[in-house]
């Protein structure tokens, strides 16, 4: 029943905009579109960013795997490698700290009037993407180096989906309790 909607390009652009408005609203209300909140997360004095991300994971993972079990949704799991995931992830981290926003929250920061996000961040992101695009043919062979053997945590731990999800949620809730207990 969702196939025709998923295949309709015009409806999808409208849905993308609607989802984005809700996403941006929630990001702003949580505080993570503010430079101070992100930089203080990276300086380990404010854990709002981690709380938002891990709460999304708890709620998201239950719904998505329930629907996937019923054949209602497709998963979009990306594979990774040492050369791609780890090296790229660390480069991303350096940019994360220098900019003080990430690619999603920079858009939210622009929405609340942060000109450093617009003039610095958005232009830098656009130029950086272009530099990557130009360099891509030379980088491509390096990206496959040290491919990860497993795609999903289930394969890594040799466990069923819910046998991974339940302990994961327990761990995340323990993390939340710990953070609140420490007053972070």
């Amino acid at each position, binding site marked *: 029943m969702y196939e025709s909607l998923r295949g309709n390009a015009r409806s999808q652009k409208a849905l993308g905009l609607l989802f*984005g408005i809700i996403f941006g609203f929630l990001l702003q209300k949580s505080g993570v579109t503010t430079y101070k909140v992100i930089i203080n997360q990276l300086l380990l004095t404010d854990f709002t960013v981690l709380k938002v991300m891990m709460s999304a*994971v708890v709620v998201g993972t239950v719904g*998505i795997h329930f629907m996937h079990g019923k054949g209602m949704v497709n998963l979009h*799991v990306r594979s990774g490698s040492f050369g791609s*995931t780890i090296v790229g992830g660390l480069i*991303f981290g350096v940019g994360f700290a220098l900019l003080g926003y990430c690619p*999603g929250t920079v858009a939210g920061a622009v929405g609340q009037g942060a*000109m450093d996000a617009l003039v610095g961040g958005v232009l830098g*992101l656009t130029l950086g993407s272009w530099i990557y695009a130009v360099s891509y043919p030379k980088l491509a062979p390096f990206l496959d180096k040290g491919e990860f053997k497993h795609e999903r945590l289930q394969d890594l731990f040799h466990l069923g989906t819910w046998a991974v999800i339940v302990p994961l949620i327990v761990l995340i809730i323990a993390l939340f309790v710990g953070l609140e207990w420490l007053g972070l």
Partner: protein
Amino acid sequence: MNWLAMEQWSPYVCGAGIGLLSWFTFLLSDKPLGTSTSFARTAGMIERLLRGNRVLDREFFQKVTPSIDWQWMLVLGIVIGSFISSSLSGVAQIHWVPEPWLSVFGSAVLPRVLVAFLGGAFLAIGARWADGCTSGHGISGTMQLAVASWIAAICFFVGGIAMATILYAIPTL
């Protein structure tokens, strides 16, 4: 309504809301939340404006077509949603130098914008290199229990914590 005008909601409530939102992006759009590819499409669209369809000679832009798609509209929506939220609470305001940068490095606009620009470039290169950002890997990939996404998210924070610590240690040297 009063709660719409609140400056900040609980991070747990907002995070849960984002998790709930992702159910609908999977169900109705067959897509995980993600944002960084849109900056690459934008770069390609600008190059297309300047050089025409020769942009498609680049291997990267054959893979990531320089056009407006679902995710590009999502990023545009984030700007609008944040504007609505911050306007309702009265915190929407044009500003150039945020705290705590202001207290530590001063109120000059140029240094902040230059570092932000450099940061943006690193962020984009890193996101394409690792095939995702804080949304695509950090939220959407982790909730799908993807090994690569959990590793990517850890690397985002390892790199970020190291760089932020160095950056904010500079004035004390």
